[in-house]
């Protein structure tokens, strides 16, 4: 049984549902040629991303920030409010943005450094992660699991466990997870799951259920990240279901 190229490409692009992912992964496991074709698609993707990564670090011309600061003609009242907001903050939008961007791009590298893996090595061992624009995000079975699985539910496919779900201080939904030997914290932003922290698990057994107990095997890096992000209490089952139903878009505030 040979899987068509467009399916393999869709797999690499993170477009397949869990069942189809599992089928492709099984085929790749049994057939070296299928595995090789997947590697080629993945290599092209990495090659393109590597070739265009540097462009993101170039400084943006002031005229673009200026265009963004100028007000549209039919929304004149905004000018006063923008000026006030800026004066209160006492900083220019462009410098804010630059700082935010630096933070974003150091994040993907930082998350991986915590794991103790080289920046590019993770691609081969963790097909459920990708960094399309310098931000580490979940893909494939991890992305599907984070979107569909409730806490403590055993996974149908990969050994993914969801620890707890909560609302972050910025209103985004976040969930902790453990998968294979990794434990992590993922937060929903702009329709995808960004990985805010990732670390090696001390023990693979029952990581999720013992979360936040004194003898928690959940790595300290993840616990620290959760403490830093969480506002209020973790979601209960009803809260999780409701959040899942609206596809984890921003929590009501």
């Amino acid at each position: 049984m040979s899987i068509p190229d467009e399916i393999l490409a869709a797999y690499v692009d993170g477009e397949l549902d869990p069942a189809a992912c599992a089928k492709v992964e099984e085929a790749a496991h049994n057939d070296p040629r299928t595995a090789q074709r997947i590697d080629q698609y993945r290599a092209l993707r990495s090659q393109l991303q590597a070739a265009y990564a540097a462009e993101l670090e170039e400084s943006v011309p002031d005229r673009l920030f200026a265009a963004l600061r100028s007000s549209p003609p039919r929304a004149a009242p905004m000018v006063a409010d923008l000026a006030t907001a800026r004066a209160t903050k006492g900083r220019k939008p462009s410098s804010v943005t630059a700082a935010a961007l630096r933070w974003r791009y150091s994040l993907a590298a930082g998350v991986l450094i915590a794991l103790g893996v080289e920046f590019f090595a993770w691609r081969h061992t963790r097909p459920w992660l990708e960094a399309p624009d310098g931000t580490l995000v979940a893909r494939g079975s991890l992305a599907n699991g984070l979107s569909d699985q409730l806490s403590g539910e055993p996974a149908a496919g990969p050994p993914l466990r969801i620890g707890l779900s909560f609302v972050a201080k910025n209103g985004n939904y976040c969930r902790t997870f453990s998968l294979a030997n990794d434990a992590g914290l993922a937060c929903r932003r702009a329709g995808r799951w960004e990985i805010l922290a990732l670390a090696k698990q001390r023990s693979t057994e029952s990581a999720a259920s013992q979360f936040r107990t004194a003898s928690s095997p959940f790595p300290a890096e993840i616990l620290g990240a959760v403490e830093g992000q969480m506002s209020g209490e973790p979601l209960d089952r009803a809260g999780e279901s409701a959040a899942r139903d609206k596809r984890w878009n921003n929590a009501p505030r």
Partner: protein
Amino acid sequence: MNTTDTSENVREQIAALLPRLRRFARNLTRNSHDADDVVQIAIERALTKLDQWRPDARLDSWMFKIVWNAWIDELRSRGRQSQLFAGAEAGEYVGESLMDREADLLSVQAAMATLGEDQRAAVSLVLIEGLPYKEAAEVLEIPIGTLTSRLARGRDALQAMLAPPEGAKI
């Protein structure tokens, strides 16, 4: 949350997207000055219709779509045909050694430049900007099937031009 807060918030988010918008525009225009012009037009258009953006939609897709439309308008006003640049100087880069990083980067960009507008846009959105198929199809206002076939042709062309790393050839 009132409208003003939302608008300020969206502007900040657009500011954070500028590097990606410029990169996408540069892939479309293959010229950094044109790219910044296109992004500037897109920003101006976006500001006049901020109220049309729904917070549950992806802001990057929405902005990419405005950039894409600004570029299409520019092409039309210049009277260009969409496939005009395809195929020009692809030959000289084929089979180039990828041993050093500089050569690799040059080749990837040269290879991209040989694709037609439509394929290059699809490849940029999905493989470089990381958009899901559905989002990329909405940006380009085409059915998903059309997107995936443009993507497949673009990918095949790139693979043929770019030597696979470590000689991994079937």
